[in-house]
């Protein structure tokens, strides 16, 4: 094995092989280093980015790294991550969905307005959060279907169709919100979705379950593979990963459980936000679909080589429509989370930086704009970066001019990294 690896030290192939054949954590780390040198930088930009962000904002404002603010960042990132999960699927196809900002607004606004009207209009009195949320999600999924249908039927670039969508759904939001300008979210369940926390013990249970499940799956897979005589991830590496995840998880749970109340006299505020649990559950479900099912495989295949997918008998157009539906669904969820966080929707809901933040989140996390490369988790990691920057700038009270420039630069940096790593991945 090792002689193969040494043959051509710089090549992408040998770097990948090295990480597949590594037997000990030490070998594994060396293989990672080699992959990074070969241009396969993985999550490195995120880690470096987060460290840099922490240093810059903490030195400018002592409140940045307080437990209270860190939990704020989690709540702030939720909508970016959820909409970003859908965006990852779209980017995997090699397409883009520019409409997600205002489609999310359609989701948030329909939720807020239906709940408001259910209080006054007897015909709507049967409505409550548990049926209004599905209705809003069906609406935004249908919007995604419409985009996908138009793109595939008329063979149009998704860029143009969703740009039209961006404008049109903005208009729809303006029309439904109407002259009032703002609709408050009164329903307590929706209102508290973004701010509700679980009792402190649950931070440990949920994070423990999450890490335990991931590790259990790794061990089961490794065992079945070994029994089948295939190369399997060695136990020491699985344990090494478990230790790292457990350390991060314990730290996060610890932070969640520190009392965040501003004064000692105030009732204690501590525990894991419900929204963080939602992020983890969606992450697992969408990662399963992307990486463990035929449908997910076809999404990657279409993004990698549409013609090859077609010749393999994959119904390419159907896959594309389904992905735009996923994008609409996730945008709807993100919109409801945003409405909950802001406790209201308004005519400008879904506008501003939202779309750029979502795209930036997916791309910073390592999903390629060129299609076929990426993971659902990249939206979560990227959203953490984006929300940290947004939050930090908010603490520093910078002008919106500066905010726009910084956001633009962050997105630009992400796509440059994407383009460079794509170039280094190509052989011959």
């Amino acid at each position, binding site marked *: 094995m090792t002689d*193969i690896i040494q043959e051509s030290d710089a090549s992408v192939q040998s770097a990948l092989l090295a990480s597949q054949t590594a037997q000990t954590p030490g070998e594994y780390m060396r293989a990672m280093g080699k992959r990074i040198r070969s241009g396969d930088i993985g999550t490195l930009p995120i880690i470096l980015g987060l460290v840099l962000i922490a240093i810059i904002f903490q030195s400018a404002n002592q409140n940045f790294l307080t437990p209270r603010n860190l939990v704020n960042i989690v709540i702030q990132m939720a909508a970016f991550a959820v909409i970003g999960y859908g965006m990852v699927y779209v980017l995997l196809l090699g397409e883009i969905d520019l409409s997600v900002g205002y489609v999310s607004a359609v989701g948030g606004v329909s939720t807020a307005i239906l709940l408001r009207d259910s209080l006054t209009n007897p015909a709507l009195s049967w409505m409550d959060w548990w049926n209004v949320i599905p209705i809003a999600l069906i609406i935004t999924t249908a919007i995604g279907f419409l985009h996908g249908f138009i793109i595939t039927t008329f063979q149009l670039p998704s860029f143009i169709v969703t740009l039209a969508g961006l404008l049109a759904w903005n208009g729809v939001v303006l029309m439904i919100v109407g002259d009032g300008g703002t609709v408050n979210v009164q329903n307590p369940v929706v209102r508290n979705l973004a701010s509700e926390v679980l009792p402190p013990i649950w931070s440990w249970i949920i994070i423990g379950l999450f890490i335990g499940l991931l590790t259990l799956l790794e061990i089961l897979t490794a065992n079945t593979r070994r029994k089948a005589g295939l190369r399997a991830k060695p136990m020491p590496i699985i344990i090494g990963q478990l230790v790292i995840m457990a350390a991060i998880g314990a730290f996060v749970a610890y932070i969640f459980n520190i009392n965040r109340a501003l004064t000692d006299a105030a009732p204690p505020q501590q525990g894991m936000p419900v929204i963080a649990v939602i992020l983890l559950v969606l992450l697992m479900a969408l990662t399963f679909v992307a990486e463990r099912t035929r449908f997910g495989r076809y999404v990657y295949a279409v993004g990698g080589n549409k013609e090859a997918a077609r010749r393999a008998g994959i119904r390419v157009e159907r896959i594309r429509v389904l992905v735009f539906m996923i994008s609409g669904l996730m945008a709807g969820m993100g919109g409801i989370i945003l409405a909950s966080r802001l406790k209201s929707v308004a005519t400008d809901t879904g506008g501003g930086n939202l779309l750029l933040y979502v795209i930036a989140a997916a791309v910073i996390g390592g999903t390629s704009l060129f299609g076929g490369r990426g993971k659902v988790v990249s939206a979560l990691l990227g959203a953490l970066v984006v929300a940290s920057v947004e939050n930090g700038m908010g603490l520093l009270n910078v002008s919106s001019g500066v905010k726009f420039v910084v956001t633009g630069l962050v997105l630009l940096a992400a796509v440059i990294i994407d383009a460079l790593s794509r170039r280094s991945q190509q052989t011959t």
Partner: protein
Amino acid sequence: MAGSLNGRTPLLETKGVSKAFGPVQALSRVDFDVYPGEVIALVGDNGAGKSTLIKGIAGIYAFDEGQILFDGGKVNIHGPRDASDLGIEVVYQDLALADNLDVVANMFLGREWTQGMPASTDSHEAPTGISRFARNLMPLSEIEMEKRAVSTLDELAVTTLNSVRLPVSSLSGGQRQSVAIAKAVLWNSKVVILDEPTAALGVAQTRQVLNLVRRLAEKKLGVVVISHNLHDIFEVADRITVLRLGHKVKTYIAKETDQQEVVHAITAGQVSSVPGMTQ
């Protein structure tokens, strides 16, 4: 027809197939046959109709006239799926691999094994109680697929591949060609058609692929190779069919002819009135 093959039935046979693209007559009443266990080369100048012939067989175009026989019986091929259901697999010149997916994923693309359905290499997916929609959301049977991919590559003695879990983008040209061929063979195929399999390869990799082509024939498959490289063709082919301007010139038996005669047929085109074997 080509009675030199001991009166056996051809695996695949076209009888008088034609295809016009508007005013261009790409194929005119071409007879072509493939026997199990042989490599037959399809040669001709640019535009001779080679790709059109195999695309018709593969179900990408419909022929205007003529018949396709498979195992002696007349068949209708209306699309790529029909061809692969019969056991006809084509390795296109552009290979049609998804670069971002690994070797296993490419070999099974479009026909992945999932939990809850029998792992079968019949190109025709057996009906199960599970709907197609549900099947697309079932967990993939990665381990079974990987084992099968490895054993197929082993059977073909493809030894240059260090791991079947590498993305195809990291493979060399010869490795990719091997993967594309192994993909075609995986599905209990009976006829494998290769369009210019060595066009982009260096000397060593060309050798590997030609060896692989011979091994397919040893496994009793019918192998059709399109190539412009006469040297390669004489090395690997049992018979050579020459097309010129959409007409079949002749089918030569490789041992009984030489490069000069074939070149003459390709360029000058002495159309023999009785297409078929040479004696």
